[in-house]
């Protein structure tokens, strides 16, 4: 896995949550996410973004996360679960 700073990791998790790939953290465990959930979320983001599904925050993934984008979440299923405020 590429070298990642804590800041990059936090940014990545925040990004995945914001755009619907990662469900909100379990209130019991605070901000912790399971490694499996994180990996699946990264893969889903990579699949949606047309990247290779590595399941890790590689350079291409971090690069795409820095790309200017729309505020709306990408994952409609999760958006539904969250109440779909927009619709």
């Amino acid at each position, binding site marked *: 896995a*590429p*070298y990642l*700073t804590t800041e990059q990791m936090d940014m990545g998790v925040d990004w995945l949550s914001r*755009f619907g790939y990662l469900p909100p953290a379990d209130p019991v465990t605070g901000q912790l996410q399971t490694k499996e959930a994180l990996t699946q979320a990264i893969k889903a983001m990579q*699949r*949606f*973004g*047309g990247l290779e599904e590595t399941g890790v925050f590689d*350079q*291409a993934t971090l*690069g*795409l996360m*820095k*790309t*200017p*984008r*729309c*505020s*709306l*979440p*990408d994952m*409609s299923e999760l958006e*539904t679960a969250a109440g779909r*405020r*927009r*619709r």
Partner: protein
Amino acid sequence: ALALQKKWTKRHLSWRVRTFPKESAVLGRETVRALMYYALKVWSDITPLNFHEVAGNKADIQIDFTKADHNDGYPFDGPGGTVAHAFFPGERFSAGDTHFDDDEAWTFRSPGGSSSNEWQLECPMVRFVALLWFGHAIGLAHTSAIESIMRPYYQGPVGDPLKYDLPYEDKVRVWQLYGVRDSVSHTARPDGVSHTDDPPVLMDLPENKSTVPPERDAPDRCTSHFDAVAQIRGEAFFFKGKYFWRLTRDKHLVSLRPTQIHRFWRGLPANLDSIDAVYERPGDHKIVFFKGVKYWLFKDNIVEEGYPRPISDFGLPMDGVDAVFVWLHNDKTYFFKDNHYWRYDDHLRNMDQGYPKDTTLWKGIPSQLDDAMRWSDGASYFFKGKEYWRLVGSDMEVEAGYPRPIGIDWLVCKDMQSDAPETRNNETDLQITGKHHTDHAENAYEVCSCTS
């Protein structure tokens, strides 16, 4: 996703720009209205939807330029990041409303006469951004389809606002919602609202330099040996003399005409007539320019204070640099000079031990490179003269089939065509595909191609 989508039950939709960009020197009110008109027209051209601009507060699609938390549950995050959003159709009061982050550097037709525009977000709105968000406003969700305008990420300019043709993917999705527009256009007005019949005119640009012919000393991209090549923010930059060309992430040339380095990269000395090498630093993503024994550090497109500094900061000898790139394989920075190379750790800001080494360890690449860069396909590219070499992944040997011509593979040159002087004046009328299209003149006004 289609089952979840909502759509407008009516076919006549009113729109209004309620608030305008506050600090944009380029976007006047009339320009913004015109851009919105043409972005909506792209959708109404192929569906039975009809959009009418209105003056009142009851517009179906209210358009706002707003900042930070604007009380809709989706606060903006300043420059970069999220740039706009729109509410899907429905019964909500805010359904259809479209909000643009006023902290972004919204531009349309760069004052510099190129499409390179501002750094933070060079989003000529009608070319992409408004298209995407009006897609939401009429009920389309994001898609992962590469060819779709409804991908959530900014994809770069999409060309002439008057000639933009939606990708087939998007046509099919919007036809599934509203059907196909028949040959007879609807003319009925929505009741109780005023409207404008005539499209706004794109005319209030402070200085439309898009028709200015290229500078006489502008180099020919198809025959040039490049001074430097770099991947910056995922895009490719080819530097030659005082100019550079730019390619989007999906390797589309932004403009056939080069942009002057000084008009985009702010803070380089005015007398700097070329650069030797450029790279985006891993970690903090600052951009480093090399010329001779000096280097400049840029945060985005503005030089940092205290520069230039000597390249001895990197542990390099004072001989200058031919090439520099960051190898995706190990995230290390490699410097090349003549037939030697050095490996530098940008995270530790330290030159690795045991260098320089002989460039022959990189089998197949020439010495005295022009420059090198990594690309988003995971490969590394080395440039010299009119040719380039490709190394895949962690390989230190050139892939079979290389070198190949730079012009044909990267810069939309066909059989090494030349930008001869007699053809240059027509470049504003060339699409990136290289095909000619004629000047567009109708209704007594003229709109120039935005591809240049």
